[in-house]
């Protein structure tokens, strides 16, 4: 057991470092699930209301794609599991993979693992400690969700199953992150890879749930949904997921035993001895640093767009003569159902694409925090020019990501429906979200310039936008709350009317925020 020496101390270290982070994650995930569950209860007070809503969902691809298989929808518990299951699973998975990445590869990349391992700490100590801490966080989420659902008066077995399902998804993705942490030397790459696996898992189960369900069995999220909380619970799929988590952890351990500290399975190659002219300015440097990130985000958004676009042509068939559903999807009755669906799809794509925007904008603070800004500003580079170079990549990169989303949706939809005009139409509709993304850039730059220590709060702002955009209608937030999100002011093209005013106002807000941040940055100390 000498390879595990020091693990208890490392667990305590991780808990000490994350004494705020873990409770916040656990509380946020559990609270989101429970608040949603409570509002579902309020929305469907009678069995009749539930049955009516269930009828709407049965053949509604949008709902199936976003939520999962329609099972047990005639009960309140089933409805809750349907509304929060997939969403909660993604949140727990994100929490788990980020925590594991943070305590394994990020530590190793920073060189701290070397220091730790030079003490009486075994080879597997850091990974084991990271997995134990993450498993603890997953268990807390599971317990909090189960207890909360029981507290809301839902059946005990179903509540326990849903809680366990969320916890087990977390364990699987902790295992995924443990493996990706062995592959590359870079924490960012390792986490990105794990998030890509999560995205794939979501897409597979979405495709499976819309189709005959086979593909769902290729996805860990599909497995835990197959445990059927509140709909005739089954333990088997959860055990399958647990076994997968254990297998992944074992694989990570085996891979880790074979490599050097700091090294990955992918060896770094020698690079160019001299710099190309394109690198030799701030914008060139910014592009070079974010090239792979931009490619990854663009491809992810493109693929998700393709998924949505290929579902869209079926929408009309599903709805058929169902007037209620028609009303639900397109209340105005003017725009077609397909367009209404595409509008929602593009909103989701824009929200996902904002991940690139915020990550890229926060590079400013990242470079400063890592000490790499100092030598650059000690050269003949004005602060404005440096920020400008990095912002150019962020602003244009955001446009590229959005365009790829619109293109993916448009190409798939156009090919399947024979409507070639869909490509430019959806491309334009996706780009309409650009001003909203730029407002997020403004938020990040303002934080960076005025209160650099809390620049990462830009992520919280994005999380708020996601919350308002996806759960706003369900949570029945007051208008002034949801109005804070810039995404709510973008016309939901292609169904809605195009509005120049809203976009111009958003651009104004974005410029004001960037201006404020830049002014703050030009007058503050570096470091």
């Amino acid at each position, binding site marked *: 057991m000498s390879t595990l020496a020091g693990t208890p101390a490392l667990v305590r270290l991780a808990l000490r470092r994350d004494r705020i982070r873990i409770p916040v994650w656990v509380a946020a995930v559990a609270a989101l699930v429970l608040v949603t569950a409570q509002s579902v209860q309020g929305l469907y007070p009678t069995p009749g209301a539930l049955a009516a809503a269930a009828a709407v969902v049965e053949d509604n691809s949008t709902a199936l794609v976003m939520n999962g298989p329609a099972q047990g929808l005639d009960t309140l518990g089933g409805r809750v599991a349907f509304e929060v299951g997939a969403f909660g699973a993604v949140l727990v998975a994100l929490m788990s993979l980020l925590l594991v990445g943070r305590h394994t590869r990020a530590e190793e990349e920073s060189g701290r693992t070397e220091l730790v391992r030079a003490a009486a700490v075994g080879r597997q100590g850091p990974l084991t400690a990271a997995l134990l801490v993450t498993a603890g966080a997953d268990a807390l989420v599971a317990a909090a969700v189960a207890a909360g659902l029981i507290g809301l008066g839902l059946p005990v077995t179903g509540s326990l199953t849903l809680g366990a399902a969320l916890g087990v998804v977390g364990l699987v993705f902790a295992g995924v992150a443990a493996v990706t942490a062995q592959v590359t030397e870079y924490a960012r790459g390792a986490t990105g890879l794990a998030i890509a696996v999560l995205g794939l898992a979501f897409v597979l189960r979405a495709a499976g749930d819309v189709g005959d369900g086979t593909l769902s069995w290729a996805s860990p999220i599909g497995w835990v949904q197959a445990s059927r909380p509140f709909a005739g619970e089954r333990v088997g799929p959860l055990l399958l997921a647990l076994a997968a988590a254990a297998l992944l952890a074992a694989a990570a351990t085996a891979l880790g035993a074979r490599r050097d500290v700091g090294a990955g399975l992918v060896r770094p190659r020698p690079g160019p001895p001299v710099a190309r002219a394109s690198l030799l300015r701030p914008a060139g440097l910014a592009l070079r640093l974010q090239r792979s990130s931009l490619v990854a985000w663009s491809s992810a958004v493109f693929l998700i767009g393709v998924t949505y676009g290929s579902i869209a042509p079926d929408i009309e068939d599903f709805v058929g003569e169902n007037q209620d559903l028609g009303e639900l999807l397109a209340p105005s009755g003017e725009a077609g159902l397909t367009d209404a669906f595409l509008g929602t799809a593009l909103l989701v794509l824009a929200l996902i694409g904002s991940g690139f925007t915020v990550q890229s904008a926060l590079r400013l603070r990242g470079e400063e925090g890592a000490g790499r800004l100092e030598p650059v500003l*000690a050269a003949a*580079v004005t602060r404005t020019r440096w920020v400008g170079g990095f912002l150019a990549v962020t602003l244009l990169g955001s446009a590229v990501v959005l365009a790829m989303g619109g293109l993916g949706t448009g190409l798939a939809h156009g090919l399947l429906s024979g409507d070639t005009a869909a490509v430019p139409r959806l491309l334009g509709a996706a780009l309409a979200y650009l001003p909203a993304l730029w407002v997020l850039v403004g938020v990040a730059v303002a934080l960076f310039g005025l209160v650099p220590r809390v620049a990462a709060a830009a992520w919280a702002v994005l999380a708020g936008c996601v919350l308002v955009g996806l759960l706003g209608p369900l949570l029945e937030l007051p208008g002034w709350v949801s109005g804070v999100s810039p995404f709510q002011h973008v016309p939901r093209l292609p169904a809605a009317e195009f509005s120049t005013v809203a976009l111009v106002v958003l651009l104004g807000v974005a410029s004001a925020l960037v201006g404020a941040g830049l002014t703050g940055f030009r007058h503050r100390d570096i470091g």
Partner: protein
Amino acid sequence: MTTTIFATGLVKTFGRTQALDGLDLHVTLGEVHGFLGPNGSGKSTAIRVLLGLLRADSGRVTLLGGDPWRDAVVLHRRLAYVPGDVTLWPTLTGGEAIDLLGRLRGGLDRRRRDELLESFDLDPTKKARTYSKGNRQKVALVAALASDAELLILDEPTSGLDPLMEAVFQSCIGEVKREGRTVLLSSHILAEVEALCDRVSIIRAGRTVESGTLAELRHLTRTAIVAETTRPAAGLAELPGVHGMERDGMRVRFEVDTAHLDATLRHLTGFGVRTLTSQPPTLQELFLRHYGDEIEETPQPAGALR
């Protein structure tokens, strides 16, 4: 204009920490100026103020005739900087980082760059991530030395270099000096300071405590004397400037302030000097005297830390 850096009364506080407390620094054109002080005495903060990265709370500072905060970019074209803790972009190669840093300050001499790569024995095709501390420092040094900057600001540039590379560095700075360029060199390596610096400033707790040529500073220290006399040397201990008197028969051992050396020796010769050895003050002693408080501070008992 013979003054390259003129700073007086610099004050900088971070929250409740007083990093600079009325610092003075005066560097003349064409000299290599040593900038010394214990860890945490404010050297790097002072350098960041000189670079316009931090704004001093009060005090006056002129660098190459300009205001480092207001004229940052204009001035930076004329200077090159090597940070104490070099962090590079992990995915860029060393060669790319050198070109980037050189280009951003206005360009570098390609032939000189390649010569420096050779003499510092640095592989420019390796990703910065794989470099050791010494190699990262070499990247910053090559970028700075391959420039035609009038002023080099070097913050502990050799703390990670091996003795061979230290020698390369010293010869490079020697060349810079011959070309009439100015260097501000923060360093803890006393042999390096002794070999390179025309003048030094010693700071402690954010304040300049000593400034001058090495010869002038030596003057402030004591010479150790061991002498054997034919008659017992009486009254030595009572002389001004004599410290640590030890007597062993006809042998005496003491230290004397360099300012009182002459008078003390005159007194001593009156007793018939048979043997005499004198040890000039070493830089080491000079610094220990100025760093003193830092060293005498009692360390925390290990048990206090968990």
